[in-house]
């Protein structure tokens, strides 16, 4: 308990202000507690509940700002204003949306599997919320620092993909089933490059705990692990089915995919889960590759985390706004033929480096960065050459003005019986 109180700022502030006579708190100079001695267990439960409340509301508040920000950005990308009616700059639009969806009729399709149909929206939200519990938001600001943090994150995020399968299967809708199958294909393919991309980071920091990974980043790992960042970012985008990998709810093909039959709050929960997944992905990318809460010291660490988070979210929105969707075979090909090889290159270079310098300092890390960037650029170029589509051979000659007349098949003009008239009258 005392260790936790020393390290974890959130726990310290809440627990010591609740419990009056805990000796650990008195040592640290807290004397304003309410609950008398002998009731430490009550203080513990109360502070745990308040932390849960704080953290769920924090995430939800983040999601509201994210939905607003994403829609405003969409507007900017598309030459329009975006939502601007409710609240200053339209910041209350997600609240209005939430109220609207709450009052919609809740529909249960006739063919639906009732239990799974109702379970799926819960399954999409809960795992993403759990992911946030291991992410260090600032120096000492975290819920829990698991020593297997990154494995926990990878394991839990897969569950929300399963919820798409559940939703698609239980709706009793053929289009939704297609969406569910695509989701499983994405999950199976992209879990592997995602897990392998993290291995470089784990090797460098020597720990699975997210807190230790942040602390061990003398320089952000994106400088040392460009390939790892690239692969992890793309695999995470695919994992949460964002464009250009948004196969599960491809609007132009599947209408809304697994969400076709959902309405009211169940739909809202899916929507919420989707945006929370975006937030969680950005948080994990920040933690693993951008140095987490680290930054120049005079500004609070939470601010640095937030700023990096916003940057990653902007990248995600930018991708989503500008790129068309890939076809399902191309998406899977990209995972197995492209990202998988890139992670292997990354692991091998990092392993050789760790073999030479088992405990790298700042100088060694800079050397690794100098090696890894050319390797990354060359290997990405190579993969794009192998996977890229070949241009038409004659496309350049087609653009050429002098290329006419062609040796194309031409039809005899007698096929067309009408005589020319218009041109003569003048």
């Amino acid at each position, binding site marked *: 308990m005392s260790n936790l109180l020393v390290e974890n700022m959130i726990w310290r502030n809440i627990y010591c202000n609740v419990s009056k006579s805990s000796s650990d708190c008195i040592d640290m100079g807290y004397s304003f507690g309410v609950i008398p001695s002998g009731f430490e267990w009550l203080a513990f439960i109360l502070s745990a509940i308040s932390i849960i409340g704080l953290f769920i509301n924090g995430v939800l508040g983040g999601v509201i700002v994210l939905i607003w920000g994403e829609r405003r950005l969409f507007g900017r990308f598309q030459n329009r204003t975006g939502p601007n009616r409710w609240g200053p700059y339209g910041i209350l639009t997600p609240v209005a949306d939430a109220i609207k969806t709450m009052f919609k009729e809740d529909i249960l399709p006739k063919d639906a599997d009732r239990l799974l149909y109702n379970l799926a929206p819960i399954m999409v939200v809960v795992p993403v919320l759990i992911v946030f519990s291991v992410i260090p938001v600032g120096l000492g600001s975290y819920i829990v620092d698991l020593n297997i943090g990154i494995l926990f994150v990878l394991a839990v995020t897969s569950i929300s993909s399963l919820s798409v399968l559940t939703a698609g299967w239980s709706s009793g809708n053929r289009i939704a089933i297609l969406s569910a199958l695509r989701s499983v294909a994405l999950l199976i393919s992209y879990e592997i490059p995602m897990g392998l991309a993290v291995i470089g980071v784990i090797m460098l920091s020597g720990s699975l705990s997210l807190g230790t990974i942040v602390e061990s980043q003398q320089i952000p790992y994106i400088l040392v692990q460009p390939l790892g960042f690239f692969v992890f970012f793309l695999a995470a985008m695919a994992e949460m089915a964002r464009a250009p990998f948004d196969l599960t709810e491809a609007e132009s093909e599947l209408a809304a995919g697994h969400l076709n039959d959902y309405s009211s709050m169940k739909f809202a929960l899916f929507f919420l889960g989707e945006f929370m997944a975006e937030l969680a992905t950005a948080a994990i990318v920040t933690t693993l590759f951008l140095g987490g809460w680290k930054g120049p010291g005079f500004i609070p660490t939470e601010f640095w985390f937030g700023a990096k988070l916003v940057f990653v979210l902007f990248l995600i929105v930018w991708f989503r706004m500008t790129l068309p969707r890939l076809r399902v075979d191309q998406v899977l090909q990209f995972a197995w033929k492209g990202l998988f090889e890139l992670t292997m290159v990354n692991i091998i270079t990092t392993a050789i480096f760790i073999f030479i310098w088992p405990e790298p300092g700042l100088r060694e890390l800079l050397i690794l960065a100098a090696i890894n960037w050319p390797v990354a650029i060359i290997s990405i170029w190579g993969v794009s050459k192998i996977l890229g589509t070949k241009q*038409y051979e004659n496309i350049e000659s*087609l653009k050429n003005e002098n290329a006419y007349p062609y040796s*194309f098949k031409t039809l005899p003009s007698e096929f067309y019986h009408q005589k020319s008239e218009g041109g003569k009258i003048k």
Partner: protein
Amino acid sequence: MSIETRPVTVNLGPQHPSTHGVFRMRVTFDGEEIVDVEPVFGYLHRGSEKLAEERTYSQIVTLTDRMDYVSSMLNNQAYILAVEKLCNIVPSPRGVWLRMIASELQRIASHFVATGFLLQDLGALGTPLIYCMRERENILDLFEMLCGARITNSYLRPGGVFMDAPEVFWPALDRSLGDIEKSIDEIEEYLSGNEIIFSRTKGTAVLSSESLVNASITGPMLRASGVDWDLRHRNPYDYYSDITFKRILHTASDNYARYWVRVQEMRESLKIISQCIKNIEPGPVRPSFDDVPRLVRPEPGDSYAAIEGSKGELGFYLVSDGGISPYRMHVRAPSLINLTLLREMLVGELFGDLFVIFGSVDLNMGEVDR
């Protein structure tokens, strides 16, 4: 252990978000692969051809606007050409140049819509569509100056157009031509070389030029397969014989070729418009009412006139019995005829490409169902 699998039949449409209107396809899938397609249409049938039998020749212009509502000017032009041929009307030169400018602008607008919606079907979440629609807005503003309407123009009359262009139109047209050229460059820069677009559209829905000719498919679809067939060149109506332009051809006959042909044709249309601006001279925009009365009564007979519409050969067939309204009107609608090979295009492709192929045909349900 063997797993029993069977194909699944899904109804896509009429209320599907990307069927470009109300079109229904009963698609049979084997996994992601399309096995069979049965198109069902007629949801937007308004009986335009029958309605035309109850209207005078000038009133029918408003009906043609509503057939292909993204290229009304071209519909007007085809219909007016048929009426002029039926009644032996000699059009006024200024009116003809004006309607050529209007119809080429409309072709650019229609190709912008086709390109934008093709990219929307490719899964780009609205951004290219809105950029394309922005350019279309420019053109619609020009139409508003010409005739006061933006979509259902009814601008053309037998023998010319109903109103001369205002003074503000010409500088605005010059400005818009520059803007449109820039945005075509932008489209080419961002989209034509985009790896995702290229890899998704290259080699999908390939049709041989023989099958296209046999199915009497025309327009960009036919030119994308290398058949040099453009009515503006083959059978110059209006003053197209005085105009030089390049016929855009591609040999691949896949989705990318269709997209590419449309984008390049927009450039050619810009060239045609600037030639029209050079050639236009002051004068009346339509013959006087003594020559062409409001209520024309053609001699009994028939006429067929066709133009190169934005989607293919757009033809109007008129039969007159000597009365004030046609005895029968028939429209050769390119959207409908270009759908003939839909099944051949779709079978064997993946589900993800279904609506891309559908969009590459560039059809308009208002014209398919009429």
